[in-house]
């Protein structure tokens, strides 16, 4: 006791205590008085924002013409990334969504493009032309011209100005009324979301039916010329035949390169064999049909030495991709019908350049064994095409689409390619009811941020990635993704994923985009090593208006169609629920339950997590799941009856 006796006597403890108390009070008072980071952040360069952007194609085309689209930057209280929007309509639509604040917190600051001093005018087709790039103005200090003649690529637009005078001047020249932010932000904005793309699917199917019907009659043309009887060679027969007739090519192998420059039907089960250089059949006329033939002896060049662009933004792609040697090349010719043709190729099968209304039906392409030795089965450059009932073995990509809007690919089979179907700058396209197996990269991939594509009813197995749906407002539904390393790599925005079955994948679905804006509902996650994963970015809530997904392993009491206990496929314990004994007991601990509650609060700052707050009690597609589980072996070959309809 003697060692510390002084403590009892001295004044030191009291003084020390007093000092500490004063310090504590000062610090605490400071903390309560201090600004808690509510200060308004400054706008950042738009390229650094995480954006809800327009398709790359549209942006590149507008940039080429020096046109401008009003932009918005939003800083949220509970989201570390700056969110950028192209076009005010998209921003307003997003800000008005009820669950928006829950996920991101309140907007701390909103900046809009300032068109004051840019000499903004509206072009004849409704776009904004500027003399100088707009700066930023805080939305609540801006004046907006509403209902003018200006538009973006998707909707009418609202044009913001930092001064009332500039807004008035613009409105007097281009119409519209000048309003404040409070009016604009509550405006009734109609923007189609991914559910509109769901409505688009039957339309695209019907359109494909119509396009097929429009060319089917080409097979009924009268026979005018028979090769070997009326002409010595196939080319001679083509040259001799009158337009709108049929040239019959009897059995046998014809060593020729053909140019079809008038509307003819070329029919027969013969083989056309090129000399191993260049393209074998070149179609340069509308309404040409090629039926039943086999094409061999195609060149091995994927680029042409003499190819050059015509000054458009996509010249690089056109030059490097659009001039491959091919079995059949269609140049500037529409309503070309390729039916039951078989092509063995070291490069491409069919190359379509600037063709509309063409239909490829019952095509068989045998590409290279190693995907990177070959090229594309069907290569479409700016050519909306219908490809159906076809088979693509090997080669780089089964189908490569460049600016081929409104393409429909259906009932086809893709095996051992790099990508089954590869989208570049292609929107409004439907890929339906196809089978893809053992792609080294992905069954179907959508790149370059296009919009309104639909991937429906496809069955993809044994690939690296089943589907990589990029872009905006992509509709991904009723697909089966089984035994892939990753079933779906969801890098898309504002997209709808529903009724997909993700079975036996390494990772069922991976949330790829930093900005959570996809709706994921009524999908079945079964037998995956990990049902779902998320990259950086805040918590994703995979429940849509009370409708969640079926997760094998999720449990709880049933209430209606769903379980009363939320499920997180990224939670270390819950993600093992379908694989490990004992995880239910662990997940039921008060600690785990409390953490589950905590997790769904302040989601904007929770990283890399996914939660379904209303998991489904039953699978949405139990028959499909049973079929996958029971027929694993027979599907290993990828030879389903689907799509194999060749003669």
């Amino acid at each position: 006791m003697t060692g510390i006796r002084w403590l009892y006597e001295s004044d030191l403890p009291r003084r020390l205590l007093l000092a500490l108390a004063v310090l504590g009070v000062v610090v605490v008072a400071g903390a309560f008085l201090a600004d808690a980071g509510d200060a308004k952040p400054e706008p950042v360069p738009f390229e650094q924002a995480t954006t809800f952007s327009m398709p790359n194609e549209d942006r590149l085309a507008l940039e080429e013409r020096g046109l401008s689209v009003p932009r918005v930057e939003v800083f949220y209280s509970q989201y570390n990334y700056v969110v950028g929007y192209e076009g005010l309509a998209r921003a307003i639509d997003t800000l008005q969504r009820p669950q928006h604040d829950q996920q991101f917190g309140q907007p701390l600051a909103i900046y809009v493009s300032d068109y004051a001093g840019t000499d903004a005018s509206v072009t004849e087709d409704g776009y904004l032309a500027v003399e100088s790039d707009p700066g930023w103005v805080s939305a609540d200090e801006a004046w907006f011209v509403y209902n003018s003649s200006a538009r973006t690529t998707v909707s009418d637009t609202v044009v913001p100005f930092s001064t009332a005078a500039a807004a008035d001047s613009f409105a007097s020249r281009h119409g519209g009324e000048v309003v404040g932010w409070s009016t604009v932000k509550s405006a009734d904005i109609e923007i189609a979301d991914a559910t509109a793309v769901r409505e688009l699917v039957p339309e695209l199917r019907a359109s494909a039916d119509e396009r097929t019907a429009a060319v089917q009659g080409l097979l009924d043309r009268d026979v005018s010329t028979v090769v070997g009887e009326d002409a010595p060679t196939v080319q001679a027969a083509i040259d001799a035949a009158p337009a709108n007739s049929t040239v019959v090519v009897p059995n046998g192998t014809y060593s020729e390169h053909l140019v079809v420059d008038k509307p003819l039907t070329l029919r027969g089960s013969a083989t056309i064999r090129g000399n191993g250089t260049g393209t074998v059949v070149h179609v340069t006329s509308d309404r040409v049909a090629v039926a039943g033939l086999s094409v061999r002896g195609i060149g091995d060049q994927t680029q042409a030495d003499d190819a050059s662009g015509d000054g458009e933004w996509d010249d690089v792609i056109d030059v490097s991709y659009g001039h491959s040697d091919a079995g059949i090349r269609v140049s500037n010719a529409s309503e070309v019908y390729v039916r039951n043709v078989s092509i063995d190729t070291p490069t491409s099968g069919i190359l379509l350049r600037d063709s509309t209304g063409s239909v490829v039906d019952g095509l068989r392409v045998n590409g290279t064994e190693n995907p990177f030795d070959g090229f594309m089965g069907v290569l479409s450059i700016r050519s909306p095409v219908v490809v159906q009932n076809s088979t693509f073995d090997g080669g780089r990509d089964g189908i490569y689409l460049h600016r081929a809007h409104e393409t429909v690919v259906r009932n086809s089979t893709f095996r051992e390619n790099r990508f089954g179907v590869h989208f570049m700058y292609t929107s409004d396209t439907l890929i339906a009811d196809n089978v893809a197996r053992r792609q080294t990269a992905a069954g179907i991939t959508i790149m370059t941020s296009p919009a309104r594509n639909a991937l429906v009813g496809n069955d993809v197995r044994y690939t690296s990635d089943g589907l990589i749906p990029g872009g905006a407002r992509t509709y991904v539904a009723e697909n089966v993704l089984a035994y892939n390393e990753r079933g779906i790599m969801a890098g898309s925005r504002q997209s709808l994923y529903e009724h997909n079955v993700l079975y036996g994948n390494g990772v069922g679905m991976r949330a790829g985009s930093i900005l959570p804006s996809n709706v994921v509902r009524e999908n079945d996650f079964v037998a995956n090593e990990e049902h779902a994963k998320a990259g950086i970015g805040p918590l994703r809530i995979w429940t849509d208006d009370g409708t969640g997904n079926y997760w094998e392993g999720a449990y709880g009491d049933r209430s209606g169609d769903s379980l009363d206990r939320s499920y997180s496929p990224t939670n270390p314990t819950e993600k093992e629920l379908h694989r490990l004994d004992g995880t239910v007991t662990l997940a039921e601990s008060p600690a785990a339950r409390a953490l589950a509650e905590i997790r769904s609060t302040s989601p904007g700052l929770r990283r890399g997590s996914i939660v379904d707050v209303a998991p489904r009690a039953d699978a949405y597609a139990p028959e499909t799941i049973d079929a996958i589980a029971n027929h694993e072996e027979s599907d290993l070959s990828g030879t389903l009856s689907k799509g194999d309809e060749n003669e």
Partner: protein
Amino acid sequence: MSTRKAVQTLVVRELVTLARSRAYYGLIAGVFLVSVGVLFAGGGAEAGYVPAAVDLLLPFELLVPAVAVALGYRTVTDDAQRGELDVLKTYPVPPWAYVLGVYAGRALALCAALVGPLALIGLYLSTQSPPDPATLATHQGIDSPALFVRFGALTLVYGLVTLALATAVSALAWSRRTAIVLAVVALTVVVAGIDLVLLRGFGTGWIADQQLTTLLAASPASAYRGLVFETVLYAAFDTETGYAAPGASAIGLFVWFALTVGVTVAGVSRAN
């Protein structure tokens, strides 16, 4: 001995007693481990000050009263049992000075047990930065160390109020066994009991809607929670309504503090 000297002696005695007790260090370690565990399991550790506060609020509502009770439930009982109260009677130390001394001592110990772990966590959080993929702009949102300090201060206040309650229990208990029983009862009442009554009352309608925020202030746990929401977590949640009446909540906590200290003084006076 002057009263001031007596108070100082008591404070130092309490501190020395605790400083020599391994259980006290265990308590600090426990608070630290639980806090860190919750932060890392909940994900708040890498997310920022406000998410960390969100993660800690629920466990602290339980943990802080538990720590306070552990520190305080035998304060007076032990002195009475060991006969030290009788010894103190021979000195001219008034009951209030005795209560002030032992309470201040224990309160300092509680400060160390709560502020220590929170300060370490705050230091750790200050080393975390938002994910920064080179090409993307990030900003802080509403998040600031000041918010975490506010959380720590409110937690401390909540701890001091519950410690006063625990000390009162120790003054009322006549044996160590009754001290344990009374402490558990007090803990249950603070942590759940009053809130359950409020829940039931609100559910059946005998609490009028407008009275809710005022009555919430009557429960120390709810007053603490309300103040944390109002001054720290407002940034994380977006609601259309207020969280609490801050004034009423502060008064509520003070009234609990004053009442329980009064009870302690009364209990000690009666023993004298």
